[in-house]
């Protein structure tokens, strides 16, 4: 293991060195660093050229210039002593602070989207694999190929038009005609009927129930002014708590063990009590208080569910924690929704922005400020999620199908295990092994930022650093970007190999 890591590190170092050489010379020969000055005639031109020449070492021949850059990188590797700047950009500013800002911004933008795409993609992928060649499967295949082929900038423009500009206008005076409500109900009914599947009769029932429920729910939301002052309310939270308990039990334990279900319901009850208590505590908290409360709630639920769980103590306690965390998330969402009316007023009645990463000069509670962050994240996150969702669905579906046809799945069924156990315990775990590799690559890609998304939505992240650098033929920022992305790719590749060996005992590292 140690030998493997050492060997890979040494090889990776030389790979990076060769790659930076190539990248550096490609960048500096990609254009004219003074192109933007071509059409200026003022007296400042000469001074600007001189300043830029000095900052970019343009008076040095290309090969020694590359070594000057390497020397700047070397300063960062030597601990202490000489300052680490990763060189200068063309205005003479140090690159390192720019890199730090860009990385912070990028992580905020891309991590949520990546996690969301991963979870949604894997879940949908598994369902399509289980129900292979159903209408649902075909629909998802169609949708994911559609998403694959969507140009991001075009999708972003559409999102801005419909989910920001038009939605903001609608939110200003939220109303639908009865016809629209009915149509939305019908569409929802069709979607549910396709998702749930079954024979014709069952589909009809699902369609009818879903259509009526959606239309009725929408009607109630509209007449009660929910879109003006959203939130779950106490009753909504109570219903959600029960629902969450049942859902997680169904997924993680099944209903055969009554005590586990009881434990889950008890955990939901405790969480609901926690919600009632938190109403006063959470008016304007900070992150520390919030995390502490979640931890406290999780511990209480762990203990309570464990006690009630009796013989199935361990399983019940685990489910208790999952329920506590889910309920905490729900409470946070509820709080954010409650902050909506005041935030919307502060945003001039148009709460969903098309550009930027936060509102300027926003003063307000913890919830208002975070809702503002969230609203700025909505559009870019949807755009990014939709596109990588497609990849994950396809990979997961293929992988799960592969596993489902293995002999040991047949054996598991033959043993009389429940379908849930077969799918979750035996099939899913093994299907995840190839996805690990995909995930490793994706997280390495996360650091590279989302070039187009950042540009379109006005985020100053890694992608923008790179594109601006290339446009200005400025090797400083481009190489800083490349160092981070290249290192991440090499590193995550290695981690994926190591993780593989842990997950699959047939593979050994040598």
């Amino acid at each position, binding site marked *: 293991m140690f030998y493997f890591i050492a060997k890979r590190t040494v090889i990776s170092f030389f790979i990076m060195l060769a790659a930076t050489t190539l990248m550096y010379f490609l960048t500096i020969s990609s254009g004219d660093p003074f*192109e933007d000055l*071509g059409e200026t*005639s003022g007296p400042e031109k000469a001074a600007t050229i001189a300043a830029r020449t000095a900052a970019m070492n343009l008076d040095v021949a290309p090969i020694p210039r590359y070594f000057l850059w390497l020397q700047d990188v070397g300063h960062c590797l030597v601990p202490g002593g000489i300052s680490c700047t990763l060189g200068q950009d063309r205005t003479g*500013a140090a690159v390192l602070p720019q890199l730090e800002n860009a990385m912070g911004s990028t992580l905020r933008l891309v991590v949520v989207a990546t996690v969301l795409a991963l979870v949604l993609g894997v879940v949908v992928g598994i369902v399509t694999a289980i129900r292979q060649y159903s209408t649902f499967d075909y629909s998802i295949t169609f949708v994911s190929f559609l998403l694959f082929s969507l140009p991001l900038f075009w999708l972003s423009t559409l999102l801005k038009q419909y989910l920001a500009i038009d939605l903001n206008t609608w939110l*200003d005076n*939220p109303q639908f005609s009865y016809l629209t409500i009915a149509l939305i109900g019908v569409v929802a009914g069709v979607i549910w009927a396709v998702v749930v599947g079954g024979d014709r009769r069952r589909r009809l029932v699902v369609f009818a129930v879903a259509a009526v429920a959606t239309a009725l729910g929408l009607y109630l939301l509209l007449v009660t002014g929910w879109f003006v002052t959203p939130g779950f309310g106490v009753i909504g939270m109570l219903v959600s708590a029960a629902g969450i308990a049942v859902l997680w039990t169904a997924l993680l334990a099944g209903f055969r063990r009554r005590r586990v279900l009881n434990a889950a319901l008890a955990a939901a009850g405790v969480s609901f009590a926690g919600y009632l208590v938190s109403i006063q505590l959470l008016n304007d908290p900070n992150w520390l208080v919030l995390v502490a409360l979640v931890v406290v709630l999780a511990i209480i639920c762990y203990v309570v569910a464990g006690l009630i769980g009796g013989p199935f103590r361990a399983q019940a306690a685990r489910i208790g924690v999952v329920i506590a965390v889910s309920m905490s998330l729900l409470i946070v969402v509820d709080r954010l929704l409650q902050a909506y009316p005041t935030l919307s007023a502060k945003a001039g009645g148009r709460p969903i922005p*098309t*550009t930027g990463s936060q509102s*300027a000069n926003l003063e307000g509670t913890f919830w208002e400020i975070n809702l503002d962050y969230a609203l700025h994240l909505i559009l870019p996150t949807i755009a990014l999620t939709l596109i990588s969702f497609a990849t994950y669905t396809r990979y997961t579906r293929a992988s799960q199908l592969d596993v489902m046809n293995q002999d040991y799945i047949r054996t598991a069924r033959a043993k009389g295990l429940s379908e849930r156990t077969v799918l979750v315990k035996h099939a899913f775990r093994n299907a995840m092994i190839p996805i690990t590799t995909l995930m490793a690559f994706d997280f390495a890609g996360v650091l590279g930022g989302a070039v187009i998304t950042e540009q379109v939505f006005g985020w100053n992240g890694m992608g923008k650093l790179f594109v601006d650098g290339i446009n200005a033929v400025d090797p400083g920022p481009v190489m800083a970007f490349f160092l981070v992305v290249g290192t991440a790719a090499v590193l995550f590749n290695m981690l994926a190999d190591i993780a593989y060996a842990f997950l699959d005992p047939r593979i050994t590292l040598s």
Partner: protein
Amino acid sequence: MRNKRTMSLAALSIGALMLSACGSAGGTSDSDSASSSGSDENLASTITMAISQAPTAYNGNTAATNAVYNTYVDNLTSSAFAAFAASGNLERNEDFGTYEKTSDDPLTVKYTINEDAVWSDGTPIDYDDVLLSWAAMSGTHPTGETDEETGAEADLFQASSTNGFAQLKMIEGEAGDKEFEAVFEDPYADWEAMFTTGLFMPAHIAAEQGGLSADGDGAELIDAIKNDDRDALTPVAEFWNTGWAYEADLPSLPDPALLPSSGPYKLDNAVNGTLTVVKNDKYWGEEREGQTDTMVFKTVVDEEAVQALQNGDVDVIDPSSPTVDTKTALEQIGETVTVDTGQSLTFSHVDLDQRPGAVFEDLKVRQAFAACIPRADMVDKFVTPVDPEGSVLNLHEYQPAQEDYQTVLDGAPAAQGDGVADLEKAKSLLEEAGKTEPVKVSMMFASTSQLRADQVALVKDSCDQAGFEITPQPEAEWSAKLSQPGAWDAVVFGWAGSGLVASGQSIYVTGGEQNFGGYTNEKVDSLWDDIAMNTDAEQVVPLKSELEQMLAETQYNVVLYANPNITAYSSKLEGVEQNPTQTGVTWNAYSWTKQS
């Protein structure tokens, strides 16, 4: 049975739909009354302006920071004796102070700073600020280090330009003086444009940060400059060069205490490329007093600005090089947005290589080329769809957006013309020049620009019929090749006009740095000498008319058109007015108001 049920279900649902189509659910009943009760007094406290790049520094006078995005902010946070107005001419800022020319030989101007003028931290604006500006901009503090290639000596202060200030003697005065006299060693035509918005930096901050005391109205700094004390000035100069710079993309602002303002607004904070300025409570003036509490500059790339405006994320946009598509998109938004179009001072032109032995050495060939270029066609394709009032450009030193354009044009008959291609005239001119074979012309342009490629295609289309043979020559490094003789026969690119009187000299005089075609004409040279030394604004127009007449007669080059400009803003805004100069649309932003 099933049939029946389906039928009744269908009938029921259709009936329900028919019934329901009439009404609607939801809506806010009180929203209308709230918004309609607004009166004139109901003004918003914030106006947001889109800029396509984040500002880079508070001090826009250095070579590295001299960019239009800094000027956008300077217009609000800085003031001086004059500023460029919407007419393209300089306008006095009496809030800041007054000035008058007291002598022509030597050129002497007496300046008086308003008694009440203070920086936003309360320190008076006085002699030390003026003297620091002179020291920084005059290039009189060489470091002794010379550049190996050019032999030029670097200065302690990395000023963007020393024009004007290099001709200026050291400004005499005492600490705390509000009056001073600028005495020029050589006359300088653009003397009025020197002490303009953005020039004065707070000397007390530079002194403190450079390790000097700011007490006694900056006496220590004044002594250091007067005695040319290099050791004391070096840290001050370093701070002047880089101390006011922001981090790239403006993730945050330096300590606001280092950034006191002399304008109607002062810098407050910045996050992620969004800069906020708030009303300067110490601003003394009345004419330029800020009307809205807060102004926000938000970085939005040009392609996304229209949707940002539509969604109300920003209130004003000013996209650079707007196209027909930009205008169409803006007009489709409807009446919530007002679109103003006009022309900028940036113009396209075709330069011709006229060195001995080059294609365009012969005046007749140049005139033939000028005759066959379809300028009016280009205006129809690239200008009027954006700005309906756009026209062919006939002058070199004035653009249609400037007040004096028509006067100068009237005084230069040879320059007048409608720009329609005249193929017959071109053919006969070529015949007169004795060209029997098609004249081969390699026409260079920036390979990155679609617009330039389109322009060259139009020229080729027309001139190939008149006896030329145009070869398009796209170049990535076109700006470096401009000064290489023989690298091109004709080249199409743009100049950004400055509104200054003498700045164009090096484009037109014999051997001028930017006289890329090798044009030479003694009359033009001597006219430029007169213009550059002339200090009376009244005489500029006749001199320039004569110059334009000469340039047209000798066909210096072919000017095409001035680029169109678009400013779009929320219809709730009042006071927004385009400014064709590089001062930008915020030139009068202090007077903007917005209905809430």
